[in-house]
Structure formats: C-alpha cells, structure tokens
C-alpha cells in the first residue's frame, strides 16, 4: 500500500443531501424477487421491500447471507429485474438509468481488466461511451489523484495490492461522475487494516463527489462508519427489518477518531441488536456471510 494521502476533507460545492424537489436517488416500492428453480421450489429472495434514498445520501444494506441485500443492489443496477414492484433511479426506471449511466458500480472483486493499465482501466467506461482522448486523460488524471494512485497510472493490475486494485475499481465507477454509486461489498476481500483505511477514503471521496451510495456489507462497524442510514435486512424471505439512522456528523468530519467515539459504539450496538435481536418468530439465521 502507498501512504495514506493526507486529505483535509475539502468541502465541495456539490454538497450534502438536502430535502428538495429533486427526485430521490433511488426509490424502491413494493419490490419482490422470486427466483424460480427447476425443481419447482421457488426461492423468495426479496419480499415487499420499500426504500427511498435521497441524493447524496450514504445507505448501507446489512444482513446475514441470503437476506437479499446483493439481490436488491442488482435490481437497482438493472442486472436483474424484480418479480413485482417498481424501482426508480433519479426518477427513471432502473433500465433507463442503466442505459443513461446514472450509476457507477463496484463489486467485491475489483474486476479490473488485466491487460489494461490502471489508467486505461479507469478510462474504460469513457472509452466505451466515445469520450474524446484528451477529455479521457484529463478525467482519469483527476480520478487517479482522488484515489491517491497518480504514481501508479501506468502499472498493470497484477502489480497492485488488493486495496489498490479496489481503489482503481472505485475510481472507474466514478469515471462518469454518476449521482449514484452501487457497491457490493467492495472491501469484503481486504484485510482489516486496509479495509479501515479504504473506508476513511471512501467517506472523503463521497464527500467530494456528492454521490449517493448504496453499500452492501456484512460488517456492522463498516456500515455504521460509512452511512447516513443503515438498512438491516432479514433472510428467508429477504425483508427490511429496520432502518437505523446514524448521525455521526458531516462526512468531512469523520476520521479515525470517530471509530473510538461513544456515538459510534451506540450506533454499532443498535445495529447489532436489530440484526441479532428480537427475532420474534424464527431464530435469527446468522451463519457465516460469504457474499
């Protein structure tokens, strides 16, 4: 890993979520998703999910495996279609939003193309959408600086550590300045140290870009540290059990010290209780979350 870029969280004009006339970044209404299996036993991955995410808001989806959090993200990304209900992204259908490139996405695997340099990987979406060469170079330089990898522009992915690869993937997802970032456990494969550093960086990057984020994770501290709201989900069928507002102050103010603050612990406790607690009917299915 390179040294941590010392960023003193410069506020950017694009700014913070404000209640306004703008359509919500994501609006999920009554969405269900049933996977039909060949043996005739259908699996209900999501049932009657409602969720609205404001522009610029950071929302984490957390829950044990099989709770449908990744499925929900994939529905928003239009990588799958809901069985019923509707999904809108900035007032458009999920499909239109995908075609209009309204969101950027990052997966658990960095998913960089190994034959492209770091810079060329970041420029991939721009290249595919016919952005001119000069504009591409300017944008990728900007993003390289943003994720602190300017010195690695001409390296290939296999020459980078896992954390650096993930930063490139994040830069790539930001390439077209989307108003919404979809992240499916982007730090899931990283070690704890790298992970915390990446979280701090992500908070800074989001503050600088003003993008709304839907962040899938199975780590409670991660969800709490990053989010404005934590959506706790329960499995079989996947439902939203609880939505916990985390008020840890403006993104620019979040730093390593926050991890030891009381307010942080309080939020962690309430998310944990919601996750494990009052499982009225069924015993809370916990298990090891691998996705």
């Amino acid at each position, binding site marked *: 890993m390179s040294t941590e870029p010392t960023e003193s969280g410069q506020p950017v004009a694009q700014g913070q979520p404000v209640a306004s006339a703008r359509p919500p970044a994501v609006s999920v209404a009554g969405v269900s998703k049933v996977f039909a299996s060949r043996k005739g036993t259908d699996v209900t991955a999501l049932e009657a999910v409602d969720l609205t995410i404001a522009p610029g808001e950071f929302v984490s989806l957390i829950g044990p495996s099989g709770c449908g959090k990744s499925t929900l993200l994939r529905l928003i990304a239009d990588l799958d279609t809901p069985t019923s209900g509707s999904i809108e992204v900035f007032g458009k259908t999920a499909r239109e939003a995908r075609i209009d490139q309204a969101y950027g996405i990052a*997966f658990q695997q960095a998913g960089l*193309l*190994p034959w492209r340099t770091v810079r060329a990987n970041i420029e*991939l979406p721009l290249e595919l959408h016919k952005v001119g060469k000069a504009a591409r170079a300017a944008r990728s330089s900007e993003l390289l600086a943003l994720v602190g990898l300017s010195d690695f522009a001409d390296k290939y992915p296999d020459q980078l550590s896992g954390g650096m690869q993930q930063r490139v993937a994040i830069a790539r997802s930001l390439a077209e300045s989307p108003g919404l970032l979809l992240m499916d456990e982007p730090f899931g494969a990283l070690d704890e140290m790298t992970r915390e550093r990446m979280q701090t960086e992500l908070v800074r990057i989001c503050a600088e870009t003003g993008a709304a984020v839907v962040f899938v994770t199975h780590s409670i501290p991660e969800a709490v540290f990053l989010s404005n709201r934590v959506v706790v989900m329960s499995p079989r069928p996947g439902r939203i059990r609880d939505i916990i507002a985390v008020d840890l102050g403006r993104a620019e103010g979040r730093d390593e010290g926050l991890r030891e603050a009381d307010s942080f612990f309080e939020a962690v406790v309430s998310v944990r209780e919601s996750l494990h607690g009052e499982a009225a009917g069924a015993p809370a299915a916990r298990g090891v979350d691998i996705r």
Partner: protein
Amino acid sequence: MTRTGSPLARRVLLGVLGVVVLAAVWELYKALGPATGVMIGDLTVLPRTSDLAMPHVWDMVARLFRPVRSAGDDELMWQAVLKASFFSLGVAAVGWLVGVVVGMLLAIVMQRFRTAESALLPWIVLSQTVPLIAIAPLVKRWGSQIEVGDFSWENWMSVALIASYLAFFPVSIGALRGLESPDVNHVELMRTYSVGWWATLIRLRLPASVPYLLPALRLAAANAVIGTVVAEVSIGLRGGIGRMIVEYAAAAGGDPAKPWAPIFGAVVVGLLAAGVVALIGLALTRYRRGETPA
C-alpha cells in the same frame, strides 16, 4: 502463462544441447546396438543399425552439401531442400491463415448463439475424424471444377485447403473457450455500461481469449505443416517438401543419406512456423498478464 526465467542465450544453448544429445544417442545406438535391431517377438521396436537404415549423422549432414544427384552438377542438396521448404511453408501459411479465420468465426458464432454451439460443435469434432487420405482426392476433384473468369483452382490451393481443414479445429475450440473465459463480473460490468455484444466482444472477450488462443494457434501451425506435407503427397503437388520426401525415399537404396535431407527440411518448416507463432505471442504479451486475486 508467460514462461519467464532463463535468458535467451541460455535457452538457445539448451536447444543446441538437445540436438547434440539426440545425435549422440543416434550414434551410440548405431555403434552399440545389435545389427538386426531390437525385436520383441516379431515386432521391431528399434531399427537395424546398418548404414542403410541409420546413416551416420555426419553422412547425413555432408549429403546436404553435395549436389542433388550424386553424379551431376545440380544445385546443392541444401539449396533444393530449402527451396522446397519455403514452398511448403508458403502453402502451409495460407492454410493456417484460412484455418485461423474460419476457426475464429466459428468460435464467435458459437459464443454468440448457444444453439449454434450445440449445432456446430459435434460436427467440428467429427470433422477431424475423417482421414486426410480420403478427402484429398475429393478436394482436388471439386477444385478442378471451379473456374470463375480468370481464376482457376490450382493444386496448391487444394493442399492449402486441406491444411486449413486441420488448422481450424484447435483454433475454434481454443477461441471458444477463450471467448467464454471472462468472469461474470466482467460481463456484468459491460452490461452496466450498457454496451452491446459487439463492444463486449472487442473490449472484453477477444482480449480475454488471447491466453487460450496462443496455444491453439501453435497447434494450428503444426497441424497446417503436417496437413501440407501429407496433402502434397496425396494430391501429387510438386515443388514441396512432402513430394520430395517420397521421391528421395525411392533413392534410399543407393544413397541412404538422401531421404533424410527433406526430413530435416520438414523440421525446419515446423520450427519456422512455431517461431512465427511465438512472435505473435510476443506481440500480445500484455494480454497474457494474470490478475492477481485481491
């Protein structure tokens, strides 16, 4: 995929060493082996050691520097062999190229349409079970009926066609595997960019297929050379190494070192073909990097 390590000089040295060892084993067996060869039952497993069956290495080499016909002022043997080698190499190259293009197209169609894969793949596999000897005369006869304007089918085209028939197979199989090799992750990423099949093919599937394609191209080159040499014989095309091998074999009685010259030529053709593919691999090095898992 990339084989790193030994520097070039060392690899060349090892290659030369291999040839020297082979020659030494040849001479050693010739000196020490039984004159009647080694038999297991009625089966000869090692050849007789007579000069007729196993000429000395130096005789074979020396033969290259004498005229083609022992008595006469023909061109030197190595010149004749080299000429024939390049002729065969040219025909093989055409066959290889046609085979690679056809193989790639088949693979792309099969990747694009699942039904095409299930419809085509068995036939592609089956095509390789047809013996060359059987199709060579057919190809020649069909070809001779083609005459469009100034264009008329020539025998060398039949040979190239048969070479391509052998060459396309590994390419279609290798390319299909390569085109289907990208992770779901990458394919979905392209989907989120809402780009179509064509852009996905160019930006993702083709580059990802390179590590699968290179061994296939090498196999195709070897197949094209073998196809050319064999087809030259069965079609009766003059000027190439295949025909030369047959012709000189007839002279083995009086001039045992002579048939070995075109065999060396065939080896040279094979090496050159493999070398060209290696150069292609060198040009595509950046597509052969592996992404280290996070």
